[in-house]
């Protein structure tokens, strides 16, 4: 059960887009040819085992990646560096949290070629 954190504004790495009765969750697509990695001036964004990760120490908050991502999946975080879905590899939970939490199994974690 989630704890009631009151008065705290959260900036999630996954956002819901909805219109006309259609809704879906948008998070980093871990593209094969990522525009964000291409545009990163410091090399903070890298591809590691297919997962696009953020090195917070290198990020200088230029927000180029935020502008380049065609899905709008990158966003600023509270401490300045950018944040995005990293498939929960840093939290070492196994199944990503959004997949586990979706009550209708709308988000599915799959291997892609």
């Amino acid at each position, binding site marked *: *059960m989630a704890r009631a954190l009151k008065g705290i504004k959260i900036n999630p790495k996954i956002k819901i887009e909805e219109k006309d009765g259609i809704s879906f969750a948008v998070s980093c697509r871990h593209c094969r040819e990522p525009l964000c990695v291409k545009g990163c001036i410091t090399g903070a964004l890298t591809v590691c085992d297919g997962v696009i990760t953020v090195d917070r120490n290198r990020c200088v908050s230029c927000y180029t990646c935020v502008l380049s991502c065609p899905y709008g999946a990158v966003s600023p975080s509270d401490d300045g560096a950018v944040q995005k879905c990293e498939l929960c590899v840093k939290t070492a939970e196994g199944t990503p949290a959004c997949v586990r939490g979706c009550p*209708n*199994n709308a988000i599915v974690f799959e291997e892609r070629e």
Partner: protein
Amino acid sequence: MAINYLYPEYEAARNYDRCITCRACERQCANGAHEYVDEADKMVCDDSKCVNCHRCVSLCPTRALKIVKSGNTYKENTNWSGKTIDEIYRQAESGGVLLSSMGNPENYPVYFDKILINASQVTNPSIDPLREPMETKVSLGSRPHNIQRDENGRIINNLPPQLSLSMPVMFSAMSYGSISYNAHESLARAAEELGILYNTGEGGLHEDFYKYGKNTIVQVASGRFGVHPEYLNSGMAIEIKIGQGAKPGIGGHLPGTKIVGDISRTRMIPEGSDAISPAPHHDIYSIEDLRQLVFSLKEATDYKKPVIVKIAAVHNVAVIASGIARSGADIIAIDGFRGGTGAAPTRIRDNVGIPIELALASTDRRLREEGIRDNVSIVVGGSIRSSADIIKSVALGADCVYIATGALLALGCHLCRSCHSGRCNWGIATQIPELVKRLNPDMGYKRLVNLMNAWRHEIKEMLGGMGINSIESLKGNRLMLRGAGLNEKELKILGIKYAGE
């Protein structure tokens, strides 16, 4: 309206210490009961819209919500209860027939809860289902009178078409229209995996589901919605619906707002038109007409499918069943007065019909007395709630049971009984696409499979406890039952003894 005659019966009680104003409840309630008030930065609830479906309660991430009785009390009155008074207010306002959904909730006796099951000890060892074979397989259909042998003396298979089930349970009729496409898909896939059957109900069969034909019973109801030769041949059996436990004597009703798109196409009626099934089948006014219909359906399907006749449990159900057993039908389905429905007039649902336990006991006895019990198999429904109810039904004489409410509960239904509004928050009894989406068939069918597997295991445990290793040896075995809290007459009709005898 200036005067509020009707005070909401239930309230959503919110624990404000836990509420994080995530607004999930607001987004999820199809009745618009919850609202975020900007100025106060707070969630509030309009209780008059709450139907007590628990959608918000189940999805609240911090469990801040619960539904409680509002506690607005009338002066105590055994005769004029609050509910009775409210019903009069409603009718004074609308001038219409009261409509309700799901089964009879009134305080009539539940005979299953007064029947106890035996176990073997000492003189007869009980059997351990984990270590010994325990068979729950049943075969429904008619039995021929004589054995026939070929020239070599070998027995010829002269059995009429049978339905073979891995356990004595089937999913009962719920029409496409009263429940959603996703609900039907969940039922069909679960039936396939379990090796049992599900029933199309009177709404016809959607073309996407023809592929589950091996696990389908197609229903022919008085409105004949969706009935064409391909439909008849697509399933494993045909069920003629004469009546239904929740509303004996009248036909089904699906309002025009629900008749859109696929529903209208599957039912073969124009969009927006009310689908009101006539009370009788207009070609069955007597038992001989039923016989004609049974045989026309058999002709149309080349005598390859067994025919089921479904009736509601009414006062002379045993006599009616006897007539049906002689009409060429292979299986009789009896629906007790607790059966569920998408929508029915409240008075008929709550006052018409008899309990399935009594109907089953007297039908089984009557058919045996007339020597025709072998002509048909008996399937019963109308509130089978657990594996214990199944054991008791089989011991009273049934071959198999139908479950419907139980199946919907597995899919997420919370018995809020507002199906007739068409805004089911769980995606079951609705056609609104955003709501239907909420029931994921991939998850739904698994829950049904889980439920049935659990029941099958419990049935095996109880059978083993009685020293029986095959469900066929329980059929009609009333000596395995005893009553507690039943009077002489009830014991006599059920044909069981009192506990201690």
